[in-house]
């Protein structure tokens, strides 16, 4: 599983990354968490507001740091 956290590095983006990593650890699954900060790549997802999270290429949330609970729901 590949999880992409998109954001240039504002506090909300860092929060998104942290929550995703914690959720992955808690779910005990094998997943690669990648931070995407290149705007060109972010745009290729059709994402125009950060932070955003995509799992296996599918965008799950835009413009908001998801909570750990949100991420756990997506991982199921």
């Amino acid at each position, binding site marked *: 599983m590949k999880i992409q956290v998109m*954001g*240039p*590095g*504002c*506090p*909300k*983006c860092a929060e998104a990354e942290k929550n995703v990593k914690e959720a992955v650890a808690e779910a005990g699954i094998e997943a690669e968490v990648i931070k995407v900060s290149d*705007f*060109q790549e*972010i*745009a*290729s*997802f*059709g*994402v*125009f*507001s*950060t932070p955003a999270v*995509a799992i296996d290429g*599918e*965008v799950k*949330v*835009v*413009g*908001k*740091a998801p909570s750990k609970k*949100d991420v756990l*729901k997506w991982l199921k």
Partner: protein
Amino acid sequence: MNNETNSATCACQTEAHVSGKKAKSGTPKMIVLGLVCVGIWYAIYSQLLPFSEWFSYALLGLSAESHLGSAVQFFVYDTPKVLMLLLIVVFFVGILRSFVTVDWTRRVLAGKKESVGNVLAALLGVVTPFCSCSAVPLFIGFMTAGVPLGVTFSFLISAPMVNEIALVLLYGLLGWKIAALYFVTGICVAIVAGWTMGRMKLENYVEDWVMAIRAGESGLSDQKMTWQQRFEYALDSVKDIVGRVWKYVVIGIAVGAGIHGYVPEGYLAGIMGDSSWWSVPLSVVIGIPMYTNAAGIIPIVEALLGKGAALGTVLAFMMSVIALSFPEMVILRKVLKPRLIAIFIGVVGCGILFVGYLFNAVI
């Protein structure tokens, strides 16, 4: 001045909370609950003034004429008043924002002619959830959707400049007339500045790679939220925004209360009054490198006005602080060439100067 760059950078970060699942329809129950809450809110709100008078004059035994008495009463009345206004306004703006996503805005603006587009973009800038760390993705999103550059700038100017927290604070501390002035002139600066930039044909000064981008289809565009989700989204934004700004509000009102009780009127009239022509440009120049959020700047605005500064000068200062922030320019440098950033600062700066002189002349 609180330079809380971190929290300020994301002063408006919330966006549609979209979860794929459909929640059960609890709409009637939610609406009844909502009405009950508004009723309770109003009942408390209407008792704030008598309570503050009772608390300061009867319970603490202070005199209404004394410096301390009027400062305490001001603080005890204004703190809950502003916080309660903030709660309800942020909640309803949250509901509104659950409809108006960045993606939707992008699609609406894409098909519009320039002049209409400038007006619409300035208005949507007020309600669309977006934070300055999203300025670049948003800029790319608008460009790739074919939104004209000038229209995009109208949006980028009005989004930070006209802000619901600033509106509530201005209304709560200085009355509805000044709040309305701020709202209307902010929108006008955004419309005129964006339109002017559109006339200047500046497309060549956007970094080349932006124009070459082929943006993907938006992953989340068509998911509808239920009313329950909208309420949850609005409550989330209340928790988030009010949770972050309440301390500035309290500090600001404490400062305001001190000024209200102690500082003689007319104190600043000589330096920032309407008699000195250079006070407006000077306050804009001072304002640009300062960076704070709306909650941080309003107490300063109140302090300046309370000491006798002219309204136009203070409005110009406030607008330059909020609309022309240095960190946002640094972020925008990724997509704009320096010359375009300079023009952006110049055009918006002129608009703000105009507002400043206008109000000093009229009021």
